[in-house]
């Protein structure tokens, strides 16, 4: 367990090295250094996982919660202090594994993807920084440490999104991402403050009596914390940053905006789960509703996007919403009595990380090949990129919830939990699941099937219509395809991991069993989605597609513009905050406050001009003043005193 600290230390070290002296290293050395350190990390993470779960449960049937390190970092007076440490328990170990795995894949992948990019070392430094902060976040021993790393994660995300700092869109996106999450973090912070004040502790394990005494404010505190989580996890309406964040390099999107950082919110809720269930069930339901709405919203929007990364981004939002819903629908800590969602959520987190990472990396490979994000430039790629094609298909099947891919199992558990909560919620989520299948396969077909742009261009080149010889799409190099294959393999088999053995809402082992009716219905829904997608997009855009497009043009347009959420936010920030608050304040400052200070000076000057005639140069008027002054003094003394 003591090794766990190295998981934190190594990425930090590699960040520092790469950040400080990276410039002097060659690209290769830097990349390998980063990858190697992460590889070691991954190994340690796995060994930690193995030893931890291998050590088995203690007498009370739980996996022990270990804290090999915990230091006071910053005392805050009274009992409060910010501690830094390492917390090992089932979910943190699970997260360690997920993060290191995906991160390692991304590191390896990036060796190929980012080859030759300017700032390669910087890229690896940031990746290491991100990994460090994310790991720090999951092993946090207390909510404040979590917040600390939460912020660091935000910053590294900011830096990575803005990696192409010469691209205006990237700059804007990074700024937006940071500010939106920061805005959410504000609520998180306030939640922490309330929590910390009433419990006099920031740790996750607080004894009952204190909690009871604070029970009045806990719903508020936890609700605020959820807002923070919602910001990171891109819940509606704070989701707006995530699609834009796709401006970053694609591996980064895979790592941060699909697999790891965005689930931080889910992790936060899971971390605070006992409190949520025990003291704030209403908040939990609210989470469920927000999650459900987000899931639907994102799924609908994903159906009409044309940028493949955008589609994936909305898909991510939708999937995370699934996890949130799963957590939200829990009504007790007992997995048998309404606490199933917790496990389901974690399970989905795990599987989703893998297949969504895979999807993004695959998308990256595609983009690498065609140098575009837009679907128009794709189509018919299956011939040129077989490995990518297969792995992408695996991932699509997984996300659509087709057995035996991992997505099926985890999603199935979520749906089960939803049905347990209420049938309406179950149905609702099933429909969203069907939509998921639809849009994923829409994407799939658009990319790999249909007419190949390259061939068209080649034809026109041959017939002399265009001068330039078109660029032929090619399969990615080995260091990019290898991670795809690895992840695809995991995706294929992860579903069979007895997840409930390790993680469940009350810590006791829980055996996953499929509920037949739910499983069947969900498969049917998924297949329906796939079939519709096949009909509509298999070979380019069919007539049906066009007809549908035609019939609900307005809706599609609205969905394409993400239901104008961005515009709304822009309106609020730009028009209201910037133009209506900040500008006037600046004006106020310049004119009124500054003006009033200047006014004092002006008044003084005016007064000076006013008294000036007194000094007329005429000795007689001087004497008049003299005598009048004297007389006035006499009168004042005689009558006013």
């Amino acid at each position, binding site marked *: 367990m003591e090794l766990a600290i190295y998981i934190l230390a190594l990425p930090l070290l590699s960040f520092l090295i790469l950040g400080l002296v990276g410039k002097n290293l060659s690209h290769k050395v830097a990349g390998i250094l980063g990858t190697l350190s992460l590889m070691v990390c991954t190994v340690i993470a796995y060994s930690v996982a193995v030893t931890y779960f291998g050590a088995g449960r203690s007498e009370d049937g739980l996996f022990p919660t270990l804290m090999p390190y915990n230091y006071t970092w910053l005392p805050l007076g009274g009992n409060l202090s910010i501690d830094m440490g390492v917390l090992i328990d089932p979910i943190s170990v699970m997260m360690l594994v997920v993060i290191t795995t995906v991160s390692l894949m991304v590191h390896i992948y990036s060796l190929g993807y980012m080859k030759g990019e300017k700032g390669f070392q910087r890229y690896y430094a940031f990746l290491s920084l991100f990994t460090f902060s994310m790991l720090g976040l999951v092993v946090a021993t207390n909510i404040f440490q979590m917040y600390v790393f939460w912020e660091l994660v935000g910053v590294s995300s900011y830096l990575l999104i803005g990696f192409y700092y010469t691209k205006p869109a990237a700059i804007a996106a990074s700024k937006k991402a940071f500010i939106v999450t920061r805005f959410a973090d504000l609520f998180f912070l306030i939640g922490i403050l309330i929590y910390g004040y009433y419990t006099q502790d920031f740790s996750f394990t607080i004894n009952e009596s204190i909690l009871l005494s604070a029970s009045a404010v806990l719903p508020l505190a936890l609700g605020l914390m959820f807002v923070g989580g919602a910001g990171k996890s891109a819940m509606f309406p704070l989701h707006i940053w995530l699609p834009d964040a796709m401006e970053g390099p694609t591996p980064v999107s895979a790592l941060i905006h699909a697999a790891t950082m965005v689930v931080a919110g889910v992790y936060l809720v899971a971390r605070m789960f006992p409190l949520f269930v025990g003291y704030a069930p209403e908040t939990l339901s609210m989470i469920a509703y927000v999650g459900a709405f987000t899931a639907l919203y994102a799924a609908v929007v994903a159906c009409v996007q044309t940028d493949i990364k955008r589609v994936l981004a909305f898909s991510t939002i939708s999937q995370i919403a699934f996890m949130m819903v799963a957590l939200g629908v829990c009504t007790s800590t007992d997995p048998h009595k309404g606490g199933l969602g917790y496990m389901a959520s974690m399970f989905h987190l795990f599987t989703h990380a893998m297949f969504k990472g895979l999807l993004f990396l695959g998308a990256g490979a595609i983009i690498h090949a065609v140098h575009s994000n837009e679907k128009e430039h794709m189509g018919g790629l299956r011939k040129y990129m077989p490995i990518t094609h297969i792995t992408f298909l695996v991932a699509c099947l997984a996300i659509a919830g087709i057995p035996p891919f991992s997505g099926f199992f985890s999603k199935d558990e979520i749906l089960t939990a939803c049905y347990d909560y209420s049938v309406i919620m179950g149905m609702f989520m099933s429909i969203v699941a069907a939509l998921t299948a639809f849009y994923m396969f829409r994407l799939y077909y658009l990319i790999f099937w249909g007419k190949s742009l390259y061939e068209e261009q080649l034809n026109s080149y041959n017939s002399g219509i265009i001068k330039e010889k078109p660029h032929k799409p090619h399969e990615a190099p080995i260091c990019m395809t290898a991670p795809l294959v690895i992840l695809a393999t995991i995706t294929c088999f992860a579903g069979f991991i007895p997840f409930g053995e390790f993680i469940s809402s009350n810590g006791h082992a829980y055996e996953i069993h499929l509920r037949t009716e739910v499983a069947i219905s969900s498969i049917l829904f998924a297949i329906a989605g796939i079939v519709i997608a096949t009909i509509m997009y298999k070979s380019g855009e069919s007539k049906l597609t066009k007809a549908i497009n035609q019939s609900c043009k307005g809706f599609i347009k609205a969905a394409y513009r993400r239901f104008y959420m961005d515009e709304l936010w822009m309106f609020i920030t730009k028009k209201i905050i910037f133009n209506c608050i900040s500008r006037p304040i600046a004006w106020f400052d310049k004119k009124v406050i500054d003006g009033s200070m200047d006014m004092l000076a002006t008044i003084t000057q005016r007064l000076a*001009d006013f*008294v000036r005639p007194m000094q007329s140069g005429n000795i007689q008027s001087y004497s008049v003043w*003299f005598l009048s*002054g004297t007389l006035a003094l006499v009168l004042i003394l005689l009558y006013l005193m």
Partner: protein
Amino acid sequence: MNYLEFLLMRPEISLLSIFVIIFLFDLMATGRYRRIFHGIVCLLMLAHTYICMTGSAEEITLFGGMYYNNPMLSFMKAMLTCGSILVILQANRWLRSASTYYKQGEFYILMLSTLIGMYFMLSARHFLLLFIGIELASLPLACLVAFDKYRHHSAEAGIKYILSSMFSSAVMLYGISFLYGSCGTLYFSDMATILSGSPIHIFALVMFFAGLGFKISLVPFHLWTADSYQGAPTVVTAYLSVISKGAAVFTLFIVLTKVFANMIVEWQAIIYILTIASITIANLFAIKQHDIKRFMAFSSISQAGYIMLAVINGTAHGMTAMVFYILVYIVANLAVFGVIESIEHQCTDGVKREDFNGFYRSNPRLAFLMTLALFSLAGIPPFAGFFSKFFVFMSAFDAGFMILVFIALINTVISLYYYLLIVKAMFINQNDNPIKPIKCDLFTRISLTFCLLGIVFLGICSFVYINIDKLSF
């Protein structure tokens, strides 16, 4: 009839002897000897200061209570003398110029006679002696103001000064006559018990105050100040603004506490009003001035207002603060005037603020000194002015005049503004045609060095203040 009592008035007698020596020297000396006249005067004055400072450690009351001297008064006299020496030192260049050379002796004589007048102002314990002292201190000064006979401004300043002075002394005399009428005596010690604050006393007090207020140049008795300061020869302006004013303040303090002790409420009210008026109005005027001497006139009026903050206290504490303030004021103001005097001959039509543009580039030392002096006047630490101002505020605050202190403090900001204007001119403003580098003569240099030392060390070395405090009564 004990005429030996004359001999006991040490400072006066010694000064008088110098007066006589100079008189005779002026009459007799010719050619070669005249050239060392200046040096001789300075040496004599130094010797006199020494005499003044030593040997009068005890209190003396002479001529049936008409004359009184004690160590504090001796100290004040010494202070005034030192100030005069500094002024005389600075006067060297001016006195050697062709238009003044032949009346050098008169300059010393007139100056010394005013100094004698001030001595008697301080030591007088009878209104007649006081009045004669005041007249002795102001009439020859009028001659000094008009000293540059062939300069229009000097003549105009002279006539303005003498007429205002006559007017004010008439008013003051009128007041004194009523004091006499209601008290039957003009001896301070006798009057103190009789004065009670009846209307006629108030009337007399105000009129008397107006007379001294004229010399201190408090608003609204100040209007002559700017014109006279501007027109008078710079040396004389320096003398007027520092020595004459200082003596008047001392006198005022003594009279108020010794004679009008029972009417403290009334005169505090007067000072209250006049202080506010002086500081504020003088500051307002000073902002707009371009002629430096005129500017210094208003600055000195506002400084007078600050001095009044110490006077209003009316105790030994206030006296210490006042004496210390004036001491610091003397060195700082004389430093400024020393600089003005040094550059004056380069400026046609008086020294303007604009003439200082780029002064630092051409004359760093003088500009530096000037800056320190202005900072000291503005009350910026670590220069002496800060300390003196602080003590003055403290003493007024001690007497319970918080609002007064507050107004005065706000005014320091305005005063800082106009002092900084000059600093700005020297350091910041560019000038294609700045004042050429100046080489001061030895005497001026000595004088300025002393001023500099005073500005820097008077505050930091507390023993000066402590010793003054020990002397205070």
